[in-house]
C-alpha cells in the first residue's frame, strides 16, 4: 500500500475545504419567508395597520382632536362616502378636515373616517394585549406542566396552597376574619411542610404528619386538568357572558379574551417541553450543573416558541374578530368611543339605506385579519420544517 501515512507528516493545509457561506438562523428563515408573497403582503399590511393605528390614536385623542370622531352633526346624518359637506348648515369647526366625508357619516352625522381612524387603535390594542396575556399565561403554565410534569403534589402542598390562596381571596372579598384565619393556617401548614421536608431523611416523621406528604397527583395532571376545564367552556359564549356581566370597558374585554384563549399556547408549549426534555442537549446542560430556571428560559423556551408565535399571530386576528363580534352584539367598548365593531353594529339598522356603514368597517376588519392570518401561516410554513418542500 502506498505510504499515505508518510505523507501525513508533510505540511498539509489544514482541511482547506470550501466552506458553505454561513447564514444565521434568522436570515435563513427570513429568506424563506420572503419568497411567500402572500405572507409578505400580510406583513406589510400589518406594518401599515400599525402605523395607521398609532397615528389614529394621536390624531383622534382628547377633547379637541385633529380628526374628531365624536362630533355630532344631525343635519348631516347618513351621507354617503365621498360626499361634500353642506357648508351652509355647518359651523366652521364642524367641517370635516379633509373637506369631504371620506367614508360618509353615520346616523348621528359623525364622520365615519374619523371613527374608523379612532377604532383602529382599539382593534390593535385589543388584539395585542389580549394575546399577550394569553401567551404569558399559556407559556408559563405550559412550561411548568412540561418541565415539572412528573413532580408530584402532596396533600400538604395542596392544603397549604388552598388555605393561603383561599385566605387571600377571602380577605379581598371582604371576609377579613375568615380570610386571615385561613392565611394563618396555610402558613402554619407550609411551615410544617418545609421543616419536616428538610429533615425527611434524617429523622422519622411523627405519626399523623406523614399524611401531609402523601402524593396526590402530578403537576402535569394539574395543568392538563386546568386546560381541559377551560376548554369545556364555549369560548365566545363565555366571553360574552363575562363581558355582559361586567361593566363595559375596553380593559375588561382585553383581559377576558386573554384569560380564555391561553389554552392553545399552553398545549403547544407543554408538548414541546415534554419532547425537548428528553433531548440530549438538555441532559447535557443538567449534567453541567445549569440551574433549572436557566435551562427553562435560556434553552427550552426559545426552542418551544415557534408554534406559540404562529398561534399568537393568528390569535391576534381572532381577538380582533371577537371584539368586532362583541361590539356588534352590543357588548363591546362603550360609546362614544368608536370601534370597528360598533360602527358595524350601528350600521345594521341601515343595511339597505346606508350600506357603507357595514361595508367600510367590515372590509377593514377583513383586510387586517386576513393580513395577520397570512402572516401567521407564512410563519408556520417557515418555522415548521416538515411542511417545507424537501
Amino acid at each position: 500500500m502506498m505510504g499515505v501515512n508518510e505523507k501525513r507528516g508533510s505540511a498539509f493545509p489544514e482541511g482547506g475545504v470550501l466552506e458553505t457561506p454561513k447564514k444565521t438562523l434568522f436570515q435563513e428563515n427570513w429568506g424563506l419567508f420572503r419568497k411567500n408573497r402572500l405572507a409578505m403582503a400580510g406583513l406589510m399590511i400589518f406594518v401599515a395597520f400599525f402605523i395607521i393605528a398609532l397615528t389614529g390614536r394621536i390624531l383622534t385623542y382628547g377633547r379637541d382632536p385633529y380628526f374628531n370622531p365624536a362630533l355630532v352633526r344631525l343635519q348631516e346624518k347618513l351621507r354617503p362616502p365621498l360626499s361634500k359637506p353642506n357648508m351652509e348648515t355647518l359651523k366652521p369647526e364642524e367641517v370635516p378636515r379633509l373637506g369631504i366625508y371620506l367614508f360618509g357619516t353615520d346616523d348621528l352625522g359623525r364622520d365615519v373616517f374619523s371613527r374608523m381612524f379612532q377604532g383602529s387603535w382599539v382593534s390593535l390594542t385589543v388584539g395585542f394585549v389580549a394575546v399577550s396575556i394569553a401567551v404569558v399565561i399559556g407559556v408559563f403554565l405550559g412550561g411548568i406542566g412540561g418541565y415539572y410534569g412528573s413532580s408530584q403534589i402532596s396533600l400538604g402542598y395542596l392544603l397549604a396552597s388552598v388555605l393561603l390562596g383561599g385566605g387571600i381571596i377571602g380577605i379581598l372579598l371582604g371576609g377579613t376574619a375568615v380570610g386571615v384565619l385561613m392565611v394563618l393556617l396555610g402558613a402554619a401548614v407550609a411551615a410544617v411542610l418545609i421543616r419536616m421536608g428538610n429533615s425527611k431523611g434524617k429523622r422519622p416523621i411523627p405519626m399523623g404528619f406523614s399524611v401531609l406528604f402523601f402524593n396526590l397527583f402530578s403537576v402535569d395532571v394539574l395543568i392538563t386538568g386546568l386546560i381541559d376545564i377551560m376548554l369545556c367552556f364555549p369560548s365566545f359564549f363565555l366571553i360574552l357572558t363575562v363581558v355582559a356581566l361586567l361593566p363595559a370597558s375596553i380593559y375588561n374585554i382585553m383581559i377576558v379574551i386573554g384569560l380564555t384563549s391561553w389554552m392553545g399556547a399552553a398545549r403547544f408549549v407543554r408538548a414541546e417541553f415534554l419532547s425537548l426534555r428528553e433531548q440530549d442537549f438538555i441532559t447535557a446542560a443538567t449534567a453541567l450543573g445549569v440551574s433549572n430556571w436557566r435551562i427553562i428560559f435560556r434553552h427550552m423556551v426559545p426552542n418551544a416558541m415557534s408554534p406559540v408565535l404562529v398561534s399568537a399571530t393568528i390569535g391576534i386576528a381572532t381577538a380582533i374578530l371577537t371584539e368586532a363580534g362583541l361590539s356588534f352584539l352590543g357588548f363591546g367598548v362603550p360609546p362614544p368611543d368608536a370601534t370597528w365593531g360598533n360602527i358595524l353594529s350601528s350600521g345594521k339598522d341601515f343595511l339597505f339605506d346606508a350600506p357603507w356603514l357595514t361595508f367600510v368597517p367590515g372590509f377593514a376588519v377583513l383586510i387586517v385579519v386576513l393580513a395577520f392570518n397570512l402572516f401567521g401561516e407564512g410563519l408556520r410554513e417557515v418555522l415548521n420544517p416538515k411542511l417545507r418542500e424537501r
Partner: protein
Amino acid sequence: MLSVHDLKVFFHSDNIVSRAVDGISYEVREGETVCLVGESGCGKTVSALAILGLVPQPPGKIRGGKILFKGKNLLDLDEKILQEIRGRAISMIFQEPMTSLNPVFTIGDQVEEAIITHEAVKKDEAHRRTIELLTDVGIASPEERMKDYPHNLSGGQRQRVMIAMALACKPDLVIADEPTTALDVTIQDQILHLFRELKEKRHMALLYITHNLGVVAEIADRMYVMYAGIIAEVGNVEQIFRDPSHPYTMGLLDSLPSRARKGKPLYSIPGAVPDPAYKPQGCPFNPRCPYVQESCRGEFPEMCDFEDHHFARCPITYKQRKGS
C-alpha cells in the same frame, strides 16, 4: 443489464444549485453484486433513486445522462411503464426500516400487495407466496406474523419484511440503500448473511449502497467509490483493497482501524466532504488530498486505467505508479 451513463442530478432551491450527482457512470451485470461506496452526502442514494424515478422533482432535476436497463433508457420512459418496472424488474430496499413500512396495514397485506400489483394471482396464491417469502427471509412463524403490524416487529424483522417485499416478484435487480445502517451490528451480520444466501439461490443482481468498507468486503464482486457526486475509483473488490489507487480510497482504507497499527493514533482524512452546492474547482478532493498539485485545482481529472477493469480518477497517482 443496468448501466448508468454520465448521470447528473441537481437540486435547486433559493437560487442555489446543489450538484448532488455530477456525471457518474456505473453498471451492474446480471447476477453480480456491485457496491456503491461513499460517505454521507456523496450522492449515492440520489443516483439510486434516479434509477427508479423516485427523485422528488420539484427541488430535484435530472440534468443529463442515461440510465439504460436492458437496453431501454429509463429516463425516457412514461410513468406508467416505470410503475411496471418498479417492484417487478427492479426493486429497492431503503435505509430506515422503522419508517419505511406503512403503520396502518399488516405486514402480510403489504407483502401481498407487492405481489398482486404486478401479477394476476388470486388472494390465496398471494397469501401462500407471502408465507414462502417470509420464511425465505428468516421470519419465524410467518403464518402468525403476517397479521402483525410493523410496530409489533423489531427493526431487523422489519428490514426482512422489506426484503421480502422487494423479492416478491423475482426482480432482475435489487437496489439496497444502506439497509443495515440503522440496525445493530449483530442484526447487520444476519441481514448480510441473508443477502448472500438469496444471491446464491436466486441469481439476482444486487446494487448495494453503503459507507461501510467491511460490508463491501463481505459481499461485493465489484465496487465503485463515490466522492462528491463523482466516481473516484472502480474495480474488483480485491483489486481495490489490494491497490487503492485514488487518494480518497487510500484515505478510506487507512482510516480503518487495524491491528497492524496498534498503539498508533487513528487516521482520518483531514477536512470534510464538500457541500454539493459549493464544490471546489477541478478535482473535488483536491483540498484534502495529500498528493495535490496545481493541475488538480485547474482541470477536472479523467479516469485512468490502472489495471484490467480497475480505474481511478487521479492522474497524479497514475503517473507515480506507471511513470517511473
